[in-house]
C-alpha cells in the first residue's frame, strides 16, 4: 500500500462550545481525486476550514505527506468562558504553514478580494509557494485552463460573475503550487453552462495528476470528477464508496437515510 498523502485521524472540532464534526477519518492517496458529499449545514465546510487552519481542531490528527500539521493532543477544555485564551495559547494549527506544505483550500463562495484586479490577485497568489519551481509553467497552464481570465485581467474582482470569481480562486490556488487542492462547492450558484465549463477545467486539472478533494451538492457532477466518494452526515463520515459503486441521486439519498437506521 502506498503512503497516503492526506490522512485525517479521529478529527473532531467546531466552534467552542459547539462541536460541529466528530471522529472524522479520511485518507487520500497521491494522484487520487476524492469527493465528499453530504447535506448542507452538517459541518463539511467547518471540517475543511479546520484542515486549512482557520479553526482549531479539538482532537485527532491531520497528517499531510507524512507530517503532522496540528499540535499533538487534545484541546484542553476551558475552565473559564470569558478568559481570553487567545493570548496564552498557541493556535493548534497555523494556516500559513498548511499553505507552505502545499495543502490549498479554495473556499466556498469565495468573494476573494473585491477591490483588487484579477492580475493583482494572481500576482500575490504565488508568494506562499516561496519560489518553488514551475510557477511560470503553471501560469501558462492557467491561461490555457481559463482563457476568460486573460480577457478580464484588469477588472476588479467584485465586477466578475460568480463563475469567473471561482476561476480566479482556483487559479490562485494553483499558483500556490499545491500538492493537494481542496475545492469547496466550486459550482455553487452557477449557471449550467458555467458549471460545464468549470467542470471541464477541473477535469483537466485532475488529468495533470494533482490530487483533488472536491465537495459538491450535485452528485452526478461530483461523481464524474472523482475516484472515490465519502458520505458525510451529521458531523461525521458515514460511508466510503469506490469508483465501481458511484451512486446516482436516488441511490445516494437512500444511502444517506439508510445510514441512520
Amino acid at each position, binding site marked *: 500500500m502506498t503512503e497516503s498523502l492526506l490522512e485525517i485521524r479521529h478529527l473532531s472540532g467546531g466552534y467552542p462550545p459547539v462541536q460541529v464534526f466528530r471522529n472524522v477519518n479520511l485518507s487520500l492517496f497521491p494522484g487520487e481525486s476524492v469527493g465528499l458529499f453530504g447535506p448542507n449545514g452538517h459541518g463539511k465546510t467547518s471540517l475543511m476550514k479546520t484542515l*486549512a487552519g482557520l479553526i482549531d481542531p479539538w482532537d485527532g490528527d491531520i497528517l499531510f505527506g507524512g507530517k503532522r500539521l496540528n499540535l499533538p493532543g487534545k484541546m484542553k477544555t476551558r475552565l473559564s468562558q470569558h478568559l481570553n485564551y487567545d493570548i496564552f495559547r498557541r493556535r493548534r494549527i497555523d494556516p500559513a504553514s498548511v499553505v507552505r506544505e502545499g495543502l490549498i*483550500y*479554495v473556499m466556498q463562495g469565495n468573494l476573494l*478580494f*473585491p*477591490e*483588487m484586479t484579477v492580475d493583482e490577485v494572481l500576482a*500575490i497568489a504565488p508568494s506562499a509557494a516561496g519560489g518553488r519551481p514551475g510557477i511560470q509553467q503553471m501560469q501558462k497552464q492557467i491561461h490555457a485552463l481559463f482563457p476568460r481570465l486573460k480577457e478580464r485581467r484588469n477588472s476588479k474582482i467584485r465586477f466578475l460573475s460568480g463563475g469567473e470569481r471561482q476561476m480566479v480562486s482556483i487559479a490562485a490556488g494553483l499558483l500556490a503550487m499545491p500538492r493537494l487542492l481542496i475545492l469547496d462547492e466550486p459550482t455553487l450558484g452557477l449557471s449550467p453552462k458555467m458549471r460545464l465549463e468549470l467542470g471541464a477545467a477541473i477535469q483537466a486539472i485532475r488529468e495533470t495528476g494533482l490530487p483533488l478533494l472536491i465537495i459538491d451538492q450535485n452528485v452526478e457532477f461530483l461523481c464524474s470528477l472523482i475516484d472515490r466518494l465519502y458520505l458525510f452526515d451529521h458531523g461525521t463520515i458515514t460511508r466510503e464508496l469506490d469508483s465501481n459503486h458511484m451512486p446516482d441521486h436516488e441511490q445516494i439519498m437512500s444511502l444517506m437515510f439508510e445510514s441512520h437506521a
Partner: protein
Amino acid sequence: MELETLLYILVSGLVLGGLYALMAIGLSVVWTTIGVFNFAHGTFVALGAYIAWQVSSSLGGAPGFLLGAVVAPVALFMIGYALHYALVKPFERNPNIVLLSVITTLAAASIIESMIQLIWGPREKQIEAPVNGNLEFAGLSFSAQDILTFVVTLFILAALAWFLKRSRTGRAMRAAAQNREAAQLMGFNVTHLYALTIGIAAATAAIAGLFIGSIRFINPTFGVDPLMKSLIVVIFGGVAHFTSPILAAFIVGLIEAFSVYFFGLYWAPSILFGLMIIVLLIKPEGLFGFQRKTL
C-alpha cells in the same frame, strides 16, 4: 478682496490640508485594514514630534532636522508594530473587537501622553525648521518651510499609495484588509500584516508630528488636536478609497484657512464642526463614497 490675498489663503489652506492628510491617512488605513479605530493616533503624532525634537535639537540645524526625519518615523514604526500585538491582537477573534480596541487604544494614548510628560516635562518645545526665509514666486513670497512641508507631504502620500498598490507587501496588506480569511488561505501572516499597517500609520504620524513641531509649539497633550482633526477629515471624506480622506483633508484645510480669514480664529472650529454635521446629515458615509471597508 484682492487676488493676492486669495492666493495666500489658498496656499496656507493647501499646506494645512497636506498636514491633515498626512495625519488622517494613518487613521484611515488602520481603520480600513484592521477595522479598529486607533485613538492613540494623536499621541503617535505627539511622540513623533518629541523624538524628532530630541534628535534634531542635539544635532541642530538642517542636519538635525534630517536625522529627526529619519529617526522619528523608524522609532514610531517599531512602537506601532509592537503596540498591535499588545492592544489589538488579543481580540483578533472577539466579535467586540471594535469596542475593546477603542478602550485599549485610549488607555495607550493616556500612557504615551504621561510618558512624554515624564521624559520631556510639561514645557513647550519647538523643532528648529531646516529652511528659513521666503521663496519668491511670481511676485508673491511664500514661507520656504511651508513649501517644504507641502512637497514632502505630497511625496509621502504618493509613496504610500505606490507601496499599497504596487509592492508585494502592500498588495498583501490590501488583501488582508479586504478578506482576512482568504488572505490567510493564501498563506499570508495576517497578524504580521496588521502590525505592519499600524507601524506604517505610526510612521506617517511621526512625519506629521515633525512638521507640526517645526511650525507650532508642542506640549505633551498636543496629540488631542491632530486626533480630532483626523477624525473630522475621516468623517468628511469617508474611507471608501485611499484618496478620499486625502481630498477631504485638503477641503478641510481650505475651509479652515478661509473661515479663519473671514470669521476669525474663534469661530473657525465651530464652522468646521457645523459643516461636518451637515455633511453627516446629507451623506453619512462621507463626501466621497460608501461605507464599504476597502483599501
